[in-house]
């Protein structure tokens, strides 16, 4: 629960929707490295909230109704912004796919010099660095890999950020970036929205290789590849 080095002013924001089997283990890993953790329970119906509130040192914010992952992230970020000492947030999935050690590495890079020499304001997790995801056992299946690749090509073209992984829930954002976010996409399309924000705000960003585990559990819960159609539609309808 004690904080180590530069992480003591970082808040980890974890959107949670029906993750009872996984959440306790995830929180154990995260609280081992981070002192500030907030879970946004999105009206789970499986007792996730009770589990979260039994973990010492973890803050719980509960949506009265289910709003979606993007909405939960926005709520968690606004919660963290209430702490005047907060210097950055890390977004982290509740399904056990992310590693707390990766999150710590991302958070520690905030403020260090980025590619253009300015201090980094956004460090984005990528699973594609050095062919890391290619055929890695426990990695994404072929259909999902293809889909994620397509999403990268599409997002690069529309957002104009040369990222290699556009739908990675693990990222570290400085306070300025966090404060400038006003996610309108309640669903999964928020991932592109965050990138659009980074681009529009001319924030200094970099990518950092991370490992995403596709356990049986996370696969059983994860997104259907068909959901890509919904995300695209939401993105199109979302722009005015």
């Amino acid at each position, binding site marked *: 629960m004690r904080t180590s080095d530069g992480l003591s002013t970082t*808040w980890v924001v974890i959107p949670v929707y029906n993750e009872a089997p996984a959440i306790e283990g995830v929180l154990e890993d995260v609280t081992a490295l981070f002192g*500030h953790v*907030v879970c*946004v329970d999105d009206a789970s119906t499986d007792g996730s*909230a*009770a589990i979260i*509130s*039994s*973990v*010492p*040192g973890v*803050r*719980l*914010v*509960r*949506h*009265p*109704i289910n*709003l979606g992952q993007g*909405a939960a992230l*926005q*709520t968690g970020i*606004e*919660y*963290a*912004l*209430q*702490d*005047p000492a*907060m210097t950055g947030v890390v977004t982290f999935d509740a399904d056990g796919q992310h590693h707390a050690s990766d999150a710590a590495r991302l958070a520690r890079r905030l403020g260090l010099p980025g590619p253009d020499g300015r201090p980094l304001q956004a460090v984005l997790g990528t699973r594609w660095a050095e062919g890391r995801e290619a055929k890695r056992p426990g990695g994404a299946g072929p259909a999902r890999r293809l889909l994620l690749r397509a999403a990268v090509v599409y997002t690069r073209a529309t957002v104009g950020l040369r990222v290699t992984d556009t739908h990675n829930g693990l990222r570290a954002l400085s306070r300025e970036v966090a404060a400038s976010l*006003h996610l*309108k996409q*309640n669903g999964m399309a928020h991932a592109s929205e965050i990138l659009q924000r980074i681009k529009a705000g001319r924030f200094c960003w970099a990518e950092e290789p991370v490992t995403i585990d596709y356990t049986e559990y996370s696969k059983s819960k994860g997104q259907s590849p068909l959901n890509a159609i919904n995300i695209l539609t939401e993105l199109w*309808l979302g722009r*005015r």
Partner: protein
Amino acid sequence: MNWIIKVLLVIAVVLITGALARGGGARRLALRRLGLAVFALVVVASILYPNAWTRVARLVGVGRGADLLLYMLIVAVLALVATRFARDRRVQQQLTALARRVALAEAVPPTAPPASGEVPVPPGRPASGAERPGTGGGATS
């Protein structure tokens, strides 16, 4: 002459899709009321002169008045779907803002010490009714 109805229908579809993307308050309401008035006039007119539809249909290149009515019905349904969609989005955003405020108001603020023993917060009630932590009011966007 068939192209006339095609052009008219295409224009209608484009306008409706355009309306989808645009937000608007009083202006939109005024336009809708105007549309309603025109609609009422047309209905009354077609009751008084039932043959008028066929004549108008001929004019725009459609064979029968009934066909013209069908086309217009399709366009009207499309318009309805589009406006519902835009409205749903607005309502969804208002609902999100409201739910977020409720969620943040009920949570123990980040700067307050964690509730001792971390008592599970029952849904629907604030964590602590009596004490009112002064920090954490600044979560506005």
